[in-house]
C-alpha cells in the first residue's frame, strides 16, 4: 500500500527536482591573459550567474588541460592578452570557450549560457558608445568536436549492458537451480560450493567480454566513436566492472528464493539507479546532496567515469586510479557478503 501511494510522490520528487538536464553551478576555469577592467567585470558576471562557479584561475593552457583531465571543470573561458585594448581600439575582441564535450549535452548548454552572458555584456558596454563593440566567441569542443551523442551513450550503454547481463543473469541462473532443486543436488555432491558458484559465474564473464568487444567494435566502426586511450586498460577495467556485477548477482542470488524476486531486485536495485544516478542520463553535479551521496554506491557511476576517461579523453591509469580502487573494493565487499550468506544458508 505504501509502495502504491508513495511511489508517485517519490518519483515526482526525484524526477522533478533531482534529475534535471539543466546545468547549474558548473565549475569553470578562467585563463585571463589580459587582466584588465573589461575581463574583470565579465568574469564577475560569469561568476555571479547561477550557472557558473569559477573554480580556478589558470595561467596557461597546460593547467587548463590538467583540470579537464581531472574532470574538475566543465568549461574554460580564455581571454587573450590586450582584451580591453582591442575592444577600445578595434571595437572587437576575442574570447575562447573550451568545453568538455565528452558529455555533449552539458557542453552545449554551458557554451550557450556563456555566450549569452558575453553577448549581454557586449550589448551593455555598447549602449553609450557610437560604434558597436563586438566580442567574438570562439568555441572549442574538447574530446568530441562534432558533439556526437554517441560519445555519451556508448559508455553508458556499456555500463548498463554489463550490469544487466552479469548481475541479472547470474542471480537468475543460480536462483533457478535453487528453484529446480538441482542446487541441492550440487551441494550434496563432492563439488565444493565455491566451485559451483564459480562455475555459474564464468560463462557470464566470458559472455560479457564478448559483449564488451562487440560494443567497442560497433562504436568504433559504426558510430565513429574513437578509443583514444589504451584498449587493454579499457578491457581490464571492463572486466573489473563485470566482476563487480557478477559478485552483486551472487549476493542477490544468495538472498532470494525465486526467479521473480531475483529479477525484481536486480531491476530495482540496478537498472533504475544505473540509468538515473550514474551520470549517464542526468549530470550528477546538479543533483541535490542526498542523491549525490547515493550515487556514490552505484557501481556504474564509477565505471561510466572510467570509460569516459579512457575511451573519450584518452587518459591513463593514474587518472582513474580512485575509480578503479573503488570498484575493486566494491567487488571484494559484494563477494565476501555473497560467500558469507551462502555459508549461512548451508549451516
Amino acid at each position, binding site marked *: 500500500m505504501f509502495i502504491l501511494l508513495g511511489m508517485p510522490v517519490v518519483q515526482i520528487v526525484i524526477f522533478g527536482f533531482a534529475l534535471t538536464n539543466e546545468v547549474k553551478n558548473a565549475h569553470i576555469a578562467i585563463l585571463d591573459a589580459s587582466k584588465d577592467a573589461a575581463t574583470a567585470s565579465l568574469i564577475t558576471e560569469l561568476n555571479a550567474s547561477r550557472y557558473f562557479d569559477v573554480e580556478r584561475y589558470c595561467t596557461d593552457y597546460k593547467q587548463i588541460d590538467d583540470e579537464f583531465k581531472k574532470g574538475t571543470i566543465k568549461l574554460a573561458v580564455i581571454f587573450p592578452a590586450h582584451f580591453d585594448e582591442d575592444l577600445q581600439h578595434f571595437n572587437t575582441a576575442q574570447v575562447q570557450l573550451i568545453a568538455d564535450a565528452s558529455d555533449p549535452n552539458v557542453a552545449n548548454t554551458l557554451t550557450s549560457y556563456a555566450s549569452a552572458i558575453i553577448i549581454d555584456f557586449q550589448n551593455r558596454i555598447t549602449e553609450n558608445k557610437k560604434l558597436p563593440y563586438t566580442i567574438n566567441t570562439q568555441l572549442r569542443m574538447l574530446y568530441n568536436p562534432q558533439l556526437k551523442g554517441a560519445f555519451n551513450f556508448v559508455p553508458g550503454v556499456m555500463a548498463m549492458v554489463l550490469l544487466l547481463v552479469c548481475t541479472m543473469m547470474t542471480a537468475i541462473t543460480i536462483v533457478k537451480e535453487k528453484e529446480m532443486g*538441482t542446487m541441492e543436488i550440487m551441494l550434496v555432491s563432492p563439488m565444493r560450493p565455491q566451485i559451483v558458484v564459480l562455475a555459474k559465474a564464468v560463462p557470464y564473464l566470458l559472455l560479457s567480454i564478448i559483449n564488451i568487444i562487440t560494443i567497442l567494435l560497433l562504436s568504433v566502426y559504426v558510430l565513429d566513436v574513437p578509443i583514444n586511450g589504451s584498449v587493454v586498460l579499457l578491457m581490464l577495467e571492463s572486466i573489473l566492472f563485470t566482476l563487480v556485477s557478477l559478485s552483486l548477482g551472487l549476493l542477490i542470488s544468495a538472498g532470494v528464493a525465486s526467479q521473480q524476486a531475483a529479477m525484481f531486485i536486480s531491476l530495482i536495485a540496478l537498472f533504475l539507479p544505473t540509468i538515473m544516478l550514474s551520470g549517464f542520463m542526468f549530470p550528477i553535479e546538479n543533483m541535490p546532496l542526498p542523491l549525490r551521496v547515493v550515487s556514490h554506491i552505484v557501481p556504474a557511476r564509477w565505471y561510466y567515469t572510467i570509460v569516459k576517461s579512457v575511451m573519450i579523453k584518452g587518459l591513463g591509469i593514474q587518472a582513474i586510479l580512485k575509480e578503479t580502487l573503488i570498484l575493486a573494493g566494491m567487488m571484494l565487499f559484494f563477494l565476501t557478503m555473497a560467500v558469507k550468506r551462502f555459508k549461512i544458508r548451508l549451516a
Partner: protein
Amino acid sequence: MSNNKVITANELTKTFGDFVAVDHISFEVEKGEIFGFLGANGAGKTTAMRMLCGLSMPTSGKATVAGLDVYTENEKIKRSIGYMSQKFSLYDDLTVKENMQFYGGIYGKKDAFIKSKTASILQELHLEKEANVLVKSLPLGWKQKLAFSVAVFHEPEIVFLDEPTGGVDPVTRREFWNMIYQASANGITVFVTTHYMDEAEYCNRVSIMVDGRIEALDAPAQLKQQYHAASMDDVFLKLARKAVRAAD
C-alpha cells in the same frame, strides 16, 4: 561399533535459535537396509536428513555416515552418498544421457565408467530410445525413476531419498520401490522419507518422528503389534496426534 552400521546417530540435535528442530535423536542403520524415516510436515525429518548429508551442521550430538564423522568429514561423506530430493532434481533442458554424464562428471567418475553405466541404466529403464530426449518431455513417473538412477549413478554406499514418490501414480510408485529393493539387494543402504504409509510397510525398519524426537523405531510389523494397529497408517496417526508443534 560394528562395521555393518552405515549410519549412526547419537543424541543428534539441531536448534535454530530457540527452536529445537531435531531433538536428541539416536538410531542406527545397517548396511543394505531400507530405513523409512517418517513424520508429519515440520517434524524435523528434512533437517535430520540434511545433517546426515553434510548440508547442515548439527548443534550437538554425534553422527557418522559410512563411518565418517558428520562434523569433520562432511566433504568425504558427500562422496559416499547419493541424494534425491522431493523436488524433481534433474536438468530439464538437458537430455536423459546428458544428465547422466553431468552427474557422473560431478562425482568425478571416469568417462568409460559413465559410458557403460549410462548404457546399463538406459537398458534397465527401457529408455534407450529416449536417450537423446530432453528430460522435460518425459512423463513425471519416468523422471522420478531416472532421478533415482542418477542418485545411485556413482554407486554410493547410502542413498538418501527425500519423499521421492510425491505426486507419482501407484503403478510407478510400485516400480520405483522395485528399484529401491534392487539397490538394497546390491548392498546400497536406502534412507527414505515418505508420507505414504503403504510405502512405510515396504521398509525394513521405520522411525516415526514427532516434534523433533523419534517416537517409535522398529520393523513395521512390530510397530503395528506394539500400537495395536491394523496398518502403519493407524500407527502413524496414533503417534502424530501427540504432536504439539503445528505442521507447516
